[in-house]
């Protein structure tokens, strides 16, 4: 009450030239207001610590691969990749390689046994490439039945190198989409779908041979 009186007295004295009932002062004038003033923008995001952190880490991965390029061979393989992430969203794949255990497929085997013919395609032994990887997305998946959330990233890769065949070493490479899911702190589960291509000589002519290759495996974050 005392403050109110003193404040009133001051207001009367200080605003002697003002009108009898001065309008309330806008907050733009004094920076303050008797009413609530909203200043902060609406919240637009939620934030979460990245569970699957890769920056400054090496990731070594291994997995089962299968290359299908219409060359009358079945090309299962064992892949080994070694990547280093200087940035969270970019990796250098020092090595992205696959050892193929190629066999003539059933049709080619039958032709060989019947007519003694062999396909002019070369039999892949190994893929040895290097390149880069751009992680363009980070996501998470809820496994409802398990109540588990899986953090993963999606990346586009591009590799260039060589395809070692039963006849020679050919220039080759691949580009594809990969998903890596984090498991605990250091492990990843890995799925890669890429399109592999190589130049090789068939029937005396240079040919671009290509086909999809899928890989599923696990990795370790170092």
């Amino acid at each position, binding site marked *: 009450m005392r403050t109110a009186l003193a*404040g009133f007295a001051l207001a009367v004295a200080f605003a002697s030239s003002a009108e009898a009932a001065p309008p309330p002062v806008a907050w733009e*004038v*004094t920076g*303050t207001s008797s009413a609530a003033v909203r200043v902060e923008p609406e919240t*637009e995001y939620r934030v979460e610590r*990245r569970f699957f952190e890769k*920056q400054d880490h090496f990731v070594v991965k291994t997995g089962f691969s299968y290359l299908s390029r219409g060359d009358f061979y079945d090309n299962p393989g064992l892949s080994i990749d070694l990547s280093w992430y200087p940035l969270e969203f970019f990796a250098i794949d020092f090595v992205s390689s696959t050892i193929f255990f190629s066999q003539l497929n059933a049709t080619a085997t039958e032709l060989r046994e019947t007519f003694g013919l062999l396909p002019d395609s070369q039999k892949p032994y190994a893929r040895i490439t290097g390149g880069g990887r751009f992680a363009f997305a980070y996501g998470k998946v809820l496994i409802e039945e398990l109540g588990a959330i*899986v953090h993963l990233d999606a990346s586009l890769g591009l590799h260039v190198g060589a395809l070692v065949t039963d006849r020679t070493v050919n220039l080759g490479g691949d580009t594809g989409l990969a998903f890596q899911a984090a*498991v605990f702190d250091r492990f990843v589960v890995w799925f890669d779908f890429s399109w592999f291509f190589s130049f090789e000589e068939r029937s005396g002519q240079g040919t671009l041979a290509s086909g999809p290759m899928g890989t599923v495996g696990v990795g370790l974050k170092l």
Partner: protein
Amino acid sequence: MIALLFALAAASPSGASVGGVSTPTDDATLVARFLEGDLVTLRRVQVLRAAAGERVDVGLVALLDDYSRLVRCLPIGGVPDDEQEPFRTARKLIRLERVRLERLVRDRAHRGTVLADLLGAQRLYQTAAPDDRRVVYWPIEEERWPGEILAPTLANRDCPSRPGAKKERPEATHRERRRLRINAERARVADLLDHLGQLPDRTASRVALTYLADAESVAGFVVTASWRRVLEATVERSPDDVRPAARLLLARVAERANDDDEIVRLYRAVLADAARSSAQDSRARVRLVKRLERAEPPRWPEVLEVVRAAKAPRAADEPVLINAEARALYGLGETEQLMTLGRRLVQRSDLWRGASEGQLGPFLMQTNELLTLLALDLDPARAIAWLDEIAIAGDEARATRLEELAELARERQDFDLAVALYDRRRAEVLEGLERRGPRAAAKDAELIGRRAFIEYDREDIEAFAGFVDTLVALATTEQGRPIARYAPHKAIARLTQDLLGRLTDDVKDDPEREKFAAVLLEANALLTVQPSRYRRVLERFQLDLERLAGAYAVGRTKTAKPSAKKRGRAAKKPVKQLGQVVVSRLPPSLEAPDHATPVPAVATFLMYPTPEGAWREGAPWASLVPKKKR
């Protein structure tokens, strides 16, 4: 596939505690983060608590939110009515600072305060989360995922680079808004008065000081006695840098209430305060002695005590204090001490010696007047020597003093002194006759007139006639000199004017007085022979003088009518005329101008909590300001 399933089963980061962004929820950490300059965490906590249904418009989070707005120069709303102490008071202080900040950026006021630290390119506070690739931002969706927390953004800082940068245009708008801001600031300060008891000493004293400074600056504003007591209690517990200034302002405010005892007590408190500055001491002494002087009866011994204890009065105050001392000595009848003061004073080259009348100013001029009055109590020779001793520079000023004193002596019927002073003046004038020419002659005529007046008082008709004759002769001598030509006419006219009334009374009781009228009549007649500027004036007197001269109206060369001889001198009646008996009174006390003393700038009113739960005075950003800037 097995591996994938295994991985899926195992990979379940649950909630904020595993891999989530850490946001403190305890108050201590929140305060610590804020003091480190982190506003983002505060905002997150605010949003999180609000989302959880907690009130965030009161308590610690609200206080820190107010600070967050203040440091970003953003507007701040009201304090809810149900806000509890001490947050209520602390938040009101922030609002006061917010108004001061607005004054800083628009009016260039409060430039020396810590608020200036908030301006400029230097950002003291983190208003956005650091660009951290370790965190992921998810758009707001309906789904709530564990481990995610709201990531509110903060409004951009709105602090300009320099004080005054946001001054309104046009100027008229700025002036009007500036007035509104000043009033708003004062109202905020007044609003805090009721909280003085809850504030830390330093903060409370700053509020009291500001309130008093505001109150003093508004003409006619009176602080009631009860509020003065509240303020005084706060001032008493103020630190040294605030207390003397606040006491002085309190006394000034009390002056408006005209409570003499309180005013004297408050000014004495200033003078007893060891932390007072010499300027504050000087100002308090001036105010105090003026109050003591005007007491009924004046408290002269106390005036002397206060004045004589002054060590280094300000140049503007010193004449006032000297005048007060002189007045006190005069009032106490301490003639010798007053003369000593006068002798000391005339040696002061910075105040007196060489100064002209205009340079002395009203207080020293009145002091000079008092010193001059002392001559009335001395014999003529000593009086003239004394006047020479205290003379101020410039012939005119000294001459004026001599003539004023001579007139005073005449009024006191100290004719010897009056004659001595006028004769001294005449001698000086005649000395300069050659140098000043007709001007000196004119002055001489005036002085002869005054001398004649004295002879009238002394009833010495021969001497009177002699001086009047001298004037008539001077009229003949000077008639060729334009400046002095009519000076004798003027002197005779003035003398006649001055004496006409008295003659009217005196001739009834003393027929000898008719001779004075006759002498004046004769002079009037002689001076109106030739046309002059004063001819009409002098002619107007002649009829009256003729009547007053009675039998002597025939002139001195003829024999007076017999009736004149028959009438003897009647017994003198006591003088009835009021105002003729002069007692040297103390001149009225002059109003001393109050020269303000600096009011210490209030660096900040703020107080903030510490992580330990204590409260600290000052701005919470003090530790964030780079040393170079500070």
